[in-house]
């Protein structure tokens, strides 16, 4: 049970870190790097979520006997 809850904390941690990097880079005046940092953070999380959603749908397909 704890590894699932840990996943939530990881994603939240990444979100907070990306937000901090974004604000720090903005203070330093480097706007584009801030945008890149948030984009990269978003892509990492997106890959992780896509994997977990594909497992989720695979599980549903196996449970509800989908052939189509």
């Amino acid at each position: 049970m704890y590894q699932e809850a840990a996943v939530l904390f990881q994603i939240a941690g990444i979100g907070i870190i990306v937000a901090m990097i974004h604000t720090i880079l903005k203070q330093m005046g480097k706007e584009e790097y801030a945008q890149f940092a948030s984009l990269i953070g978003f892509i990492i999380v997106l890959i992780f979520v896509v994997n977990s959603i594909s497992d989720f749908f695979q599980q549903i397909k196996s449970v509800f006997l989908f052939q189509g």
Partner: protein
Amino acid sequence: MVIIQIVTIAIVASLLVLLVKEQQPIFAFVITILTGVILFFFIIESVTEVIDLIRSLSKKANINEMYLETILQIIGISYIAEFGSQLTKDAGLASVAAKIELAGKIFIIVLAVPILTAVVETILNFLPQ
């Protein structure tokens, strides 16, 4: 009990969502998606038990396998469509959620067509020609 774990995970996830929502709303939405997926994995065992029970009962009563398959697929489609539409509604896209629900209903009707034809045929056989 499992229900307590489910509720704690849901509360923790909602706290995380509120924490991350102002700076990064995308991450907040990602956390909601992940919570939905995780909570589903909690209920998957009991769902499989119920489905196995139904299947064994239908085998005993030698009901046609096709009916049970269609019913399970309809349940699966309705669950996925409801999951998707609720998530898109959370993200604020009510129109997309309505489209997903419409698509789910249409696929269910398409799946139910063979059963409807079977029912109508059996009724017609009862009627004296």
